[in-house]
């Protein structure tokens, strides 16, 4: 019995030593070409490898899903192109290290990501890897020779949503009151929010009545729906009848409270009327998949202008106020929709210009 145990232990040790050797020997051959290339790649087309970096998790985040979809569409059209999607997860402390790990492979011609924070997360590693190119959408950095960025004019989107909020709070709609107070629930503070979205929202509302005030609350994270619900309840108690939400996964808490207390919600970046019909009275949308598709096509063809920061406006076709959704039509009365459409048309046509401030 004792001998059997020793034999078993020796066998285990041998197996332990042999396994990695067998594994490595097989893996190293593959390691030379770990990304599968398409079979019909033209002989002379230079391979193009793209890393699509999702700062978080793509599933459940409309903008990140659009990022992946847009890149995939472009890559599918070019036989010499391939891409790898990497999700950085929710721990922001690990983002810089994971980004560096991706770049350190030296495998990618370009890295594309979407989030205002990503240029700054990537700043140190860009200097460590001077040949690496970065493309950032929904972010802004100008003058960095390795980076190209595309920033949405969030002042315009926020103004359109604020304008509708102003129309509703001064209206005789069922949930509106006479207090001239609107609110906004945000996940966290960041420059684009502080300098574009909140001022744009208030500016739009005050275009209806300069006496409208804004109740501003911070959840402190992107997921706590219970806390968002508590904040919404408190705001409604203080006279708020329209609440803007920029808090990701915490937003359903606001939807629930506003649904129960017959108030209204404004939503950014994605057509979300269907998430809370009758509660979401206005929704903006960013056409990120379209932008990412165009940018990746440019990158594959070597036409991206690295070193530049591009500002995108509603008139360019990447930002809209969604006014043709049946839920919007059924929730908001025709006279208010007509007034709102005038402003939307003015912004979409470029007749009304709202400047992006310095970030």
């Amino acid at each position, binding site marked *: 019995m004792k001998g059997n145990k*020793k034999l078993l232990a020796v066998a285990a*040790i041998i197996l332990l030593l042999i396994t*990695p050797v067998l594994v490595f020997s097989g893996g190293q051959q593959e*390691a030379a070409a770990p990304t599968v290339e398409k079979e019909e790649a033209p002989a002379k087309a230079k391979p193009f490898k793209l890393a699509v970096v999702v700062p978080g998790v793509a599933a459940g985040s409309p903008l990140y899903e659009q990022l992946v979809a847009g890149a995939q569409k472009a890559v599918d059209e070019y036989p010499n192109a391939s891409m790898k999607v990497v999700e950085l997860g929710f*721990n*922001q402390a690990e983002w810089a290290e994971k980004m*560096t790990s991706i770049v350190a492979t030296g495998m990618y011609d370009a890295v594309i990501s979407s989030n205002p924070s990503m240029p700054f997360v990537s700043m140190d590693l860009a200097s460590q890897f001077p040949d690496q190119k970065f493309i950032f959408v929904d972010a802004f950095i100008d003058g960095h020779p390795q980076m190209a960025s595309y920033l949405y004019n969030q002042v315009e989107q926020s103004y359109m949503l604020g304008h509708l909020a102003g129309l509703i709070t001064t209206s005789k709609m069922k949930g509106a009151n006479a207090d001239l107070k609107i609110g906004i629930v945000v996940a966290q503070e960041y420059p684009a929010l502080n300098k574009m979205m909140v001022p744009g929202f208030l500016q739009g509302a005050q275009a209806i009545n300069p006496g409208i005030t804004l109740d501003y609350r911070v959840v402190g994270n992107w997921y706590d729906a219970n806390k968002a619900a508590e904040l919404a309840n408190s705001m409604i108690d203080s006279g708020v009848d329209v609440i803007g939400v920029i808090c990701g996964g915490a937003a359903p808490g606001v939807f629930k409270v506003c649904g129960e207390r017959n108030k209204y919600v404004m939503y950014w970046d994605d057509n979300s009327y269907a998430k809370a019909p009758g509660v979401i009275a206005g929704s903006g949308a960013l056409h990120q998949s379209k932008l990412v598709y165009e940018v990746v096509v440019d990158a594959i063809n070597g036409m991206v202008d690295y070193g530049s920061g591009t500002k995108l406006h509603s008139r360019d076709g990447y930002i809209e106020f969604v006014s043709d959704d049946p839920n919007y039509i059924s929730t908001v009365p025709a006279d208010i929709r007509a007034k709102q459409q005038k402003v939307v048309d003015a912004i979409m046509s470029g007749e009304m210009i709202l400047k992006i401030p310095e970030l």
Partner: protein
Amino acid sequence: MQVRIKRSGVFVSAAGLSITLAAAFIVMLIMIFSLSETPKDTIYYFFAGPVTNNYYLGNMLNSAIPLILTGLGISFAFRTSMFNLGGEGQVYAGGLAATAVCLAMPAAAGFTGISTAIIAAVVTGAVIAGMSGFFKMKWNTDELISSFLISNALIYIVDNFITGVLDDPENNLLTTKKIAEQFWFKKIYPPSNLDISIFFIVILAVLAYLYLFRTHQGYEMRMCGLNSEFSRYGGINVGKYMVLPMLISGGFHGLAGAVSVLGTSHQCYKGFSGGMGWNGIAVALIARNNPIAVIPAALFFAYLEAGAKSAMINADITIEIASIVQSVVFFLITAQAIYNFVKPRRRSA
């Protein structure tokens, strides 16, 4: 006779560890083959990824640093049969304390600032964990529950500081302002994050071993862990050894938080300590609560983490699959049953 017992113990540990490692690797291979479409790539990056270049290697070693500290903290507590389940909050609060000190002090403070930040973090962690030990001594409160509950409450308080008074509104991330460069630990293996603290941490582990196994106080501490009633009859102040190991354990956790901030992130991100406390328990379990063995155990843990990250970045598995593979490996590593199987059984008379 004593030599034979020692040899037998070493044999059991070596054989048990070998069998569990072999089983873990086989399970890992099976899982990768069934979950990955490019299993060869995945396996290659899982095993070899952490050592394929200086950056990965250095970062792997760097991620072992806080694990060594939390592993040491847990070992101290477990050796005395005190269960510190509040590691997460202690690391987090320690990191915040170090950050707050660095932000409050002028950059010119340099070494003084670093020392003060470390002391603040250690004291913070020690006080938090020490409370559970004190409650146990005073009112026989179950330290397993109290340390966990205090830690959970603290996480929200620390979150509030990071996203509130210490928040950096100019940053797009949920984080405090960056501490001045003068307070950063010196990097020793660029471009990786590995810093000079690794040398001190290894020395600390050796000192922890000497304290626990070569001093009178260490002996008393271990005795209390083995049998508190016997220790009481032997004249040992048992109450003291309910508080002291928790203070030391919390101090190690607080230090882990400080080292993470001063060495790696240079600012206190919301949730930066996620998993460090729990992983410390896994490390201590692998090391069988031996402070010296904590070093290879933490390195092994860091290797697995780096391998999982590498496979996720370079191959086709997702972060969830990588975590499942990791957890299966740990489940096997910490399974006592295999050791019991290898252990020679006493013959009945």
